[in-house]
């Protein structure tokens, strides 16, 4: 039909997964994401489900996400990038955090490292905040992009506010080079108003559903906003982004708006790092 956009989910949908913990996922997930139109996956450093006993454990983990995971993704035609840090859940131990921060610079020149993430707060403690400020300082010194985690459930509002304050307190940080993740209805406004990018995490139970994410798109617009699955070792959905694209279609959003949300927006933010390049191959 003349003038009608004809992006179909089967043939033409493309998306970027800007937050996934693929070390926790099986190879079938890589295959399914590629088949659904995923062009690139970005993996923030996170908690392993247990506390690592030393900085050497982090060294091995950083090697895994900078060397091995890109190869797993490449088998299916996808690019794999990563972010480095000590996760907020392990930030209560400031000495360990200092040791981990000391080894991060030797990984920063690797070709798939985008910046520092997911840094931030978990229980909003003084030590977590101190370690967050140490990460912000490291990012500023190396002019790195930042991906900030925000706390769960009852701790999210306060943690998001404290994170914004810590970022604003460092005048070297440009808000447009920071994505603050896991926003919900009570935090999205403060993040966007601060000039930051906001990430909506499509995670069952504790974060955001597809329908609520589309609600936030409808109420806050598409500027400086992306979606991710944050799939990990928990009850999570590697195809949450294409499922949300289907929800957008059901609610009458155009193919152009869907493409903006699931491909162009993450591409635009991530391309601020010159190392972010998308593969040539497309279905």
């Amino acid at each position, binding site marked *: 039909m003349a003038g009608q956009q004809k992006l179909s989910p089967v043939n033409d949908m493309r998306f970027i997964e800007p937050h996934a913990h693929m070390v926790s996922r099986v190879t079938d997930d890589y295959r399914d994401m590629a088949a659904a139109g995923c062009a690139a996956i970005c993996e923030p450093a996170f*908690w392993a489900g247990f506390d690592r006993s030393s900085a050497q454990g982090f060294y091995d983990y950083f090697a895994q996400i900078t060397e091995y995971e890109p190869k797993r993704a490449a088998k299916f035609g996808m690019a794999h990038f990563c972010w480095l840090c000590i996760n907020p*859940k392990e930030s*209560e131990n400031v000495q360990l955090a200092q040791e981990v921060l000391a080894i991060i610079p030797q990984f920063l020149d690797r070709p798939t490292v985008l910046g520092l993430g997911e840094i931030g707060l*978990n*229980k*909003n*403690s*003084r*030590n*977590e*905040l101190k370690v967050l400020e140490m990460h912000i300082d490291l990012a500023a010194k190396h002019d790195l992009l930042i991906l900030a985690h925000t*706390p*769960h*459930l*009852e*701790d*999210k*509002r*306060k943690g998001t*506010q*404290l994170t914004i304050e810590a970022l604003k307190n460092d005048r070297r940080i440009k808000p447009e080079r920071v994505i603050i993740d896991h926003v*919900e*209805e*009570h935090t999205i406004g403060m993040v966007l108003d601060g000039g930051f990018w906001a990430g909506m995490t499509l995670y069952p139970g504790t974060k955001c559903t597809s*329908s*609520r994410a589309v*609600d936030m798109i409808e109420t806050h617009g598409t500027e400086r906003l992306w979606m991710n699955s944050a799939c990990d070792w928990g009850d999570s959905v590697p195809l949450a982004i294409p499922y949300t694209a289907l929800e957008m279609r*059901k*609610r*009458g959003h155009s193919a152009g708006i869907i493409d903006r949300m699931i491909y162009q927006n993450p591409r635009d933010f991530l391309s601020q790092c010159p190392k972010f390049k998308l593969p040539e191959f497309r279905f």
Partner: protein
Amino acid sequence: MTKQEILDLSFVDARHKLIEIAAFLDRVERAKGEADFRLEAFRSALVELRGTESGMAKRVLLVFSDPTSEPIPAATTKTACGAWPGNKNSLP
């Protein structure tokens, strides 16, 4: 979308979720022992669903949220329980 279209798309699903909440509250009432601050917060959140003023999801989230602004002295747990215990400190 029109109100009618949203109802067509989502009413049955929303009805299902509302009945799940009602059944959850029945289950808690049937059970022995004492409830804690989470149930109190839950009932406070339900109050936010009355009326027609928009922003209900945000208001419900705020009911469950820690309203303070200072960092806590130390993290003694990694987990969140879904509702702010206030001065009650933690789960029993």
